């Protein structure tokens, strides 16, 4: 089962040791969303529970999220914290004896979204985990996890996936190779994110962000601010904007490395209108806005300030 995990050799080595029973400490799996962190832990659980039997009922139960000895908790709504109630329930489960297999797998998908109280509640359990429970904490960045939790876990890093692998996945869902390539490059090495971009029409958001730059060029703050208010997800929009700006910088240097390969002509026109100096300021200002990405700031106001600073001179 772990043989299905691709391009994550370090993680597979660690998980094989978990399956073999050599490693019992909690593991902190760090990597961006969609690179296969949860997939690889579930693969390890399947390998461990089925003992190589491809027809084992454990595999089917895990695939359907119905295995009694595999517990997964995640924020109920993306961007919300995992509360102490959920964690207490997990701790209670962790100390009960597994039902069907020798060891229970507990996956906390979003260790960086544990509330302070929830994280503190886990400390004792992570310090001395029950012998029959394996803990896997998933986080995008280790620095966002409470240091006291970090110090109690073995660190496993997940690498961004290669463009070729993501495109290979996306080609199963679309017949348009250009769209696959754009989604793969926008996803920054995350196959999960690439599939989301391809499937949910989120590329329209990229066009909205291009529209913002075009509106900015008009210098009319009223229409620019209204356009910012209409962006449905500014966080994701900023990610797309970052790629757009990177493309605008890269365009004369190396056009083969562009992300938005489907709108090269449009980018050329946009670049000539924006000019070198303003482009430089856009990149700097975007970095400033991104500093506060995770804080609960008024992101729309920050983006408006950032664009007004560049375009309303």
């Amino acid at each position, binding site marked *: 089962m772990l043989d299905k995990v691709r391009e994550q050799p370090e993680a597979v080595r660690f998980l094989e040791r978990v399956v073999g029973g050599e490693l019992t400490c909690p593991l902190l799996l760090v990597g961006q969303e969609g690179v296969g962190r949860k997939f690889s832990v579930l693969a390890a659980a399947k390998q461990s529970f089925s003992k190589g039997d491809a027809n084992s009922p454990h595999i089917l139960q895990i695939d359907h999220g119905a295995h009694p000895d595999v517990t997964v908790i995640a924020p109920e*709504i993306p961007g919300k914290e995992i509360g102490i109630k959920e964690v207490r329930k997990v701790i209670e489960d962790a100390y009960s004896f597994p039902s069907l297999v020798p060891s229970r797998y507990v996956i906390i998908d979003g260790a960086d979204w544990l509330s302070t109280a929830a994280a503190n509640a886990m400390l004792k359990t992570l310090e001395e985990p029950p012998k029959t429970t394996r803990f896997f904490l998933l986080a995008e960045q280790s620095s966002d996890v409470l240091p006291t939790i970090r110090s109690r876990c073995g660190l496993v890093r997940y690498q961004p996936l290669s463009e070729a692998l993501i495109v290979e996945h996306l080609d199963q869902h679309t017949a348009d190779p250009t769209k696959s390539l754009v989604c793969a490059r926008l996803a920054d090495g995350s196959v999960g994110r690439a599939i989301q971009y391809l499937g949910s029409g989120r590329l329209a958001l990229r066009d909205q962000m291009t529209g913002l730059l075009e509106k900015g060029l008009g210098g009319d703050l*009223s229409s620019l*601010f209204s356009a910012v208010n209409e962006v449905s997800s500014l966080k994701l929009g900023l990610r797309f904007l970052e790629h757009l700006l990177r493309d605008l910088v890269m365009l004369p240097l190396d056009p083969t490395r562009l992300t938005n390969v489907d709108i090269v002509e449009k980018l050329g026109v946009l670049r000539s209108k924006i000019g070198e100096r303003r482009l430089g300021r856009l990149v700097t200002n975007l970095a400033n806005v991104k500093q506060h990405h995770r804080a*609960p700031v008024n992101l729309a*106001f*920050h983006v*408006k*300030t950032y664009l*007004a600073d560049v375009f*309303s001179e």
Partner: protein
Amino acid sequence: MAGKKRTGPFVVAFGGEDYFLDRAVELGRSRKDREVVVLDGDGMTDHDFVDICEMRAFDGTDRVVVLDNANKLKGDKVLKPYIEAKDPQDDSVIIIAVVRSDKLSDLWKAAAAKGRSDSYPKLKPWEGAKLQKHVEKEAERLKLTLGKGTVAAFTYFLGAELRPIVNELRKLIYVVGEGGVVERKHVAMVVAPAMPAQPWEVADAAAEKNAKKAMNLVSLLYKSKGDGVCIPITAALLKTVEKLIVARQMLDKGDGKEILAARFDMHPFRVEKYLIPLAQKHTVPRLRVQMKHLCKLDAQIKGPAQSKRTLVELAVLSIAA
């Protein structure tokens, strides 16, 4: 009475006027013809809520499920298909959702489309006529008559919020007796002055370049509400500065009051009387700098910064200077 006419399976009450929203909850709670379940959406998942909605009374009695704080319900994966599948003619279970927000989410909009929605927007201080009508209606319900200038006295002491006004009316029954006439002197006797300032007043005073008034208001707000008030003040400053920069740029372009009124969804008279004089006190480059400062402030006050009050006061002074 709500029970007499057909409402469909959903009644969605929304807005910022807590008094009416509380009444919507009470109306649901007091239904005698149905089994009543009252729930609080704060901390509840949509899964649990749908579970409760789908239960049936042992004797087959129709039910009414009142969900207060419906905007705080977690998740929509189960509730969305439940709403979609609900037959608009089937009112064996009536769900009264009280959304304490001026905007309805798509989920509750879909529910309202299959039943009814009642909007109770928060009254603005300048909507005197509407407030007068509401207060008179409530006084009538309490069998009181209002004398001349009483509503103005209420708003002077309590602002434009209906709930505290109705609370004071209930006290006044003991002063003037049932069926009595409430005069201004009675109001002054009973009413305890409420919070004398609102965060938007600070932003307005700063925009007027009246530093003294703005600082006094900040001080009053801190006294009455403590450190937590720095977030609403900052939000008000953000909103005001954004409005000012757009208005000032439009004025520089030569746009008239009608165009500004359409842009800001305001009456042209208010634009002329209030917005244009304010915008003329500022310049676009200066406001751009203010926006940058406010971004920093926004991040600082929502983080672990110390001396948040000083940071807010500095921002207010910088706009008012």
